[in-house]
């Protein structure tokens, strides 16, 4: 094997293309990073391209609308969500306006603008990680290849359409409100502030896309996903502690250091432009924002140009009786192969692996989720977060048991088994994987979270509630898998995977313990809770009973929905 490195030199060229050939093999890896800044601008200004771009933007929104009208009540939901989004944008916009107007009077205009923009920036990244940028599912690189677009144009189209996603419009509203507030108070001008806001949002989008690309690349390998999971756990468990300790010991120095650092970031640059009192600061801020955007575009091109990690087995020969088969053998001939298949499938899905690895850290976030609660609420909060953990862990798997099967769902129809057996087996696999997550969470809770003396009643209560909700949500997962299924993209790391029904169950599953705890925290003390520890055991028994009942009933319910379910998951075009 030899490698052939080629450097494309051009004054405006930013890229280094590395082409690797494997001699004597058809397995050629090529890295196609042919996007240059020069071609970027040239393509952006081509009338043909602008027409294609406009057509695809319209198609994108038609697809959203088509998806919205496929089910009863979805049209109403679509309008309600957009109305809520609009109201939220308006609210944030007015909030930004008011904040800017108020802070100018205190002489802290730029500093406040910096921190407000920084919080919008972090929110943008956080919300995108949760809900996705929205572009790749509609227009993936592969799907865009069928249109007359070259690689540069596809890159621009994918990310420009991503930028038009409603989530970014909400952030734009907040930043605009801030810019208008400052202009109204006599600082800066709207003519300079608006372009700054656009540049800021572009930088925010690009930063998010870069982070997601890195996460996606890491999740392609088991080692990468384990490292990422560990990093997230450490960040969430020790990060807040480290920051809190820094702030309490050296409050002023830390604050000033962060503030100085922030000035070099996109929020700091945008704040300098919006609250400008001189051309030098405006130009400096604009230069910094441009520089950030260029660096991020370059990073994104490099990251997206990486060849995908090959999904090949490590061994050159077939391995029989691996862990999945061994586990399946424990369940016998009826469910064993189905459970093994489900475990293989879901543990190979990056998104599910990431969800299972990172979800246990929620148990470390009790103080963040329920601020201002005293030590008397410790047990109640712990019970609530273990309940929440069970509702959200591996939700894409639990609430949509056939979602990743695509056309493979038809196989269950031709195999010599009742179709419901496939559903039951998927649910057992989900139960097993999520039970492991609960045990990990329990260990983390014992190591990092528990500051008070434990007693056996507490342990029984925590485990009973955790496993009770595990069975409860798995039972509801049987229901949503049949009545509210969704076809999923196995390789995607972005976007909300849950169907409407699953979203409802997850949101209710989080809100009930959250509000329940907020209401009861000051009314029920720990000693009272401990006195009634046996109620948790009754809850567990009830939930197991409910799960067993659903497992039994689901066969009848599935009968009338089977064909529709198969067509929906397999895809209409693949009927």
């Amino acid at each position, binding site marked *: 094997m030899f490698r052939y490195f080629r450097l494309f030199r051009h004054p405006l060229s930013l890229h280094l293309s590395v082409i690797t050939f494997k001699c004597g093999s058809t397995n050629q890896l090529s890295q196609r990073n042919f996007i240059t800044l020069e071609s970027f601008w040239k393509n952006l200004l081509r009338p043909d391209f602008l027409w294609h771009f406009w057509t695809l933007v319209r198609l994108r929104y038609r697809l959203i609308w088509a998806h919205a009208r496929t089910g009863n009540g979805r049209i109403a939901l679509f309008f309600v969500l957009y109305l809520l989004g609009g109201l939220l944008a308006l609210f944030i916009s007015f909030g930004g306006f008011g904040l800017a107007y108020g802070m100018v009077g205190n002489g802290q205009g730029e500093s406040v603008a910096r921190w407000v923009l920084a919080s919008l920036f972090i929110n943008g990244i956080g919300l995108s990680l949760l809900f996705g940028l929205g572009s790749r599912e509609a227009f993936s690189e592969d799907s865009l290849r069928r249109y007359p677009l070259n690689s540069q144009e596809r890159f621009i189209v994918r990310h420009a359409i991503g930028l038009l996603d409603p989530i970014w419009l909400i952030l734009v509203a907040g930043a605009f409100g801030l810019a208008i507030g400052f202009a109204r108070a006599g600082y800066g001008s709207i003519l300079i502030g608006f372009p700054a806001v656009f540049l800021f949002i572009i930088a925010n989008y690009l930063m998010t896309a870069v982070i997601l690309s890195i996460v996606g690349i890491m999740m392609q390998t088991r080692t990468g996903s384990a490292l990422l999971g560990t990093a997230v756990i450490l960040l969430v468990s020790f990060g807040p502690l480290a920051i809190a300790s820094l702030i309490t010991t050296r409050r002023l120095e830390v604050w000033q250091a962060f503030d100085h650092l922030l000035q070099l970031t996109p929020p700091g640059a945008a704040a300098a432009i919006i609250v400008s009192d001189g051309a030098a600061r405006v130009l400096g801020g604009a230069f910094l924002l441009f520089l950030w955007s260029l660096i991020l575009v370059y990073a994104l091109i490099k990251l997206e140009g990486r060849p995908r990690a090959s*999904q*090949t*087995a490590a*061994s*050159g020969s*077939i391995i*029989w009786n691996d862990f999945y088969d061994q586990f399946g053998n424990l369940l016998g*001939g009826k469910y*064993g*192969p*189905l459970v*093994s*298949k489900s475990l*293989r*499938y879901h543990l*190979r*899905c990056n998104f599910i692996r990431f969800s299972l690895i990172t979800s246990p850290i929620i148990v470390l976030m009790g103080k963040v989720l329920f601020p201002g609660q005293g030590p008397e609420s410790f047990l109640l909060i712990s019970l609530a977060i273990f309940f929440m953990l069970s509702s959200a862990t591996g939700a894409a798997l639990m609430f949509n048991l056939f979602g*990743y*099967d*695509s*056309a*493979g*769902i*038809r*196989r269950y*129809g*031709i*195999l*010599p*088994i*009742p*179709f419901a057996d496939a559903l039951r087996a998927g649910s057992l696999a989900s139960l097993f994987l999520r039970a492991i997550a609960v045990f990990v969470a329990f260990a983390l809770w014992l190591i990092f979270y528990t500051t008070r003396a434990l007693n056996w009643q507490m342990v029984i209560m925590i485990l009973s509630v955790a496993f009770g909700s595990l069975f409860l949500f798995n039972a509801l997962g049987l229901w949503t898998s049949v009545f509210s299924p969704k076809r999923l993209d*196995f390789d995607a790391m972005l976007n909300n995977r849950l169907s409407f029904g699953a979203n409802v169950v997850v949101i209710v599953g989080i809100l009930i313990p959250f509000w329940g705890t907020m209401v009861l925290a000051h009314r029920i003390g720990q000693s009272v809770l401990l006195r009634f520890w046996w109620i948790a055991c009754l809850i567990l028994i009830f939930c197991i009973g409910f799960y067993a009942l659903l497992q039994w009933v689901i066969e009848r319910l599935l009968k009338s929905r*089977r*064909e529709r379910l*198969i067509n929906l998951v*397999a895809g209409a075009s*693949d*009927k």
Partner: protein
Amino acid sequence: MDTILEAPNREASRDREGPGETSHSLAISVENLTKLYGDVTAVDNLSFDLPTGRLFGFLGPNGAGKSTTIGCLTGLIDPNSGTINLLGEQFTSDSTELKRRIGVMPEGLALFDHLYAHEFLAFNARMYGLDEQTVRGRVEELLTVLGLNSAHHKRLAQFSTGMRKKVAFAAAIIHRPEILFLDEPFESIDPAGVAMLKDWLRRFVAGGRTVFMTTHVLETVERLCDDVAIIKAGHIAWRGDVGRLANGGTLECNGQQFTTLEALFLHLVGERYEHLEWL
């Protein structure tokens, strides 16, 4: 492969007769089968019988109802009315015991894309109740003879269309079924692979089993099938033995004689030679 294709089906018929010794003469019997999709009638009062040991070609233009019929015959689709009998027993989508005796290569192939080829085949074999030793032996043999051995470390999603068809075919025959349902089995497979599959099918039928196949390759049907039905708008428009063409015979339809199956097919479905001025 000889054992899979020709020897009596011991796994599938542990507590009943082997395919060569079955008491029933009809492999498939369909009576007044109807399937509606909303207002659209995909299959309309379809009735036909198919004896055992035949290689049956089920032809028709796109949207004629071929895949819907095969879906009903294999338990993927529930018909609105009509009865289906396979191997002398009434068949519904819940007939798990009968499903053990049939093999299916459905439209869309129904593969689990993120399994490796050996995992997928082993999964299928285990679901049909084969013992572990047989599972491993057959999976390795099938991968070798189908030329998939070098690709077994790839997930099925990374396979070419032809390779995916071969895997789906292997999954359909791995348990030595008595009736094999194949939905467009040859499209996308390389010529050598097609020749091998045809040979397997001939030997499969010679062993007393039955093949029900849909395809658009009429030449293949002419050379391979004993019996052909052409379906149009949910009805059987023609049924006959195409074997006579090999001996210089003709096919008769509505008083007309046809020397090729293609000519008959085009006569039935209507020749359409529209011209596009701009092309």
